[in-house]
């Protein structure tokens, strides 16, 4: 039981930290990702209308 507790504690710390870090990165970079995506789509739309 003791080894399982250590294992789950370490797993939980890795899970919590990676969740928080990836959230931070996605918050910053995801926004610019979305903007680029919509500008590409708008560009495609223009070509479709031309």
């Amino acid at each position, binding site marked *: 039981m003791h080894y399982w507790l250590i294992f789950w504690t370490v797993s939980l710390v890795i899970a919590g930290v990676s969740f928080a870090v990836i*959230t931070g990165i*996605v918050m910053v970079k995801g926004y610019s990702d979305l903007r680029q995506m919509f500008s590409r789509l708008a560009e495609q739309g223009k070509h479709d209308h031309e």
Partner: protein
Amino acid sequence: MHFAAIDWFIVVAYLILSVAAGLLGKKYIGNVSHYLVAGRELGTFAGIATLAATEIGTITFMYNGELGYKYGFAAFAAALISGLVMIVVGRTGLVIERFRALRLMTVPEYFERKYSRGLRLLAGILVAIGGILNMGVFLKIEGEFLTIVSGIDSRYLVAVMTVILLLELVYTVVGGMMAVVITDFIQYVLLSVATILVSIYAVHYTGWENIVAKVSSTMGSAGFDPIENPKFGITFLIWQVLLWFSIHTCWQTTAMRVFSTRTPEISKRVMTWTGFIYLGRGMLPMLWGAAALTLFGVGALDNGVPLPVVDGRTLAPIDAMPAMLASILGPGIKGIVVAGMLAATMSVNSSYLLGWSAVISQDIILPMREQMGKPALSSRSQIFVNRLANLFVGLFLMFWGLYYTPPGAVYLYLNITGTIYLAGTFICVIGGLYWKRANATGGYLAMLMGAAGAIIPFFFLHWSENVTGFCAFGLAALGLVLGSLVGKRAPTSLAGAT
């Protein structure tokens, strides 16, 4: 009422922002691929946000909280497997890389490319039934969460959930995947902040040592060791590995994110990084459940675990976690958390609405029309059919979801309803992509035997979830191999784009 004015303000502001942002998506809808797979223009980070938001809902927090309450730390094994399998799928590109290269829009579409139109239709029907039944329990459980945490009278549960579903429907029907991607980003940020806040509060308020001590005194070593725990064991762990490989590759809503990425390489990156989020998606709410057990687990024993008692009332184990949030979170924080949970609810529901309605329109209605000799629909007409299917799924859920109560642990109910189609689909996809001999006869047998292997043992023979899961995957594999060896080998080209 548990909610203060500041909490209401935060929640209403979120709802307005979310629906308004979702409606913006409409202006980018030019054709059906924009509507269903965001024009295949999704980048890595927006991809991670939309995939994570799609698969993290209030329902996820509720069933994982229930697992944590009932089985303690041993339940972490399910979360660990889901995350690790996703990382493996992302790193290796198993199925997803080829799926993305084929430029699909739905999973059953692959069946027509590899096998036959008839098999696509059968797969579409099973995917739609399994998926909608799976989603059918979301609304009621999400509603329970909201009423317990916010303190809204449970008599208004149906009205509250109907309003939320209608808001989701508005932007999903109008803006399709474009609206879903935009709202998913906002919702991902909010739900993640809420997840982190609740985790900090739960551990701070309850105390790590107290949680460990309570799990230990209640369950003994079975609360830590998933192999020793009678609900899990080695068969459960192996079934979970199989199930999560099939979910991460063939679950329609997950696969739609893979189909929406700009390149196969991006789809692999999205899957890998979301795998790490999956570890927290499971373990953190399980921890909240164990914390709720520590605070409220003083009632009569139910399968060896004390039922939660809050203010003199005995609750079901699944309701212990939201009751804990209602009691430990202060004004303002509670508003952020409920807005985060609403975000989680809406992101999942909108993506699932789009996913299952896409299957109904693209894999059931359109192939049937073609089978009847009717001309192919224009892109604009396909979008219209998709919107109608979306409305149909939404209305069905409104009635089914609010009145049906799943038997047993919700997590296991969701696993079994998913297995109805996942067993056959996964086996057909793996066989189709990696075994040249696989043919339509094998495909039919795999789909039918996989579905029968899930439905008959679980609903009629009352076998355990683990054995049922094995049975479904085993029979599906047997069906594919036998049918493919007996049936005619038909050369099929997988080239071409949609």
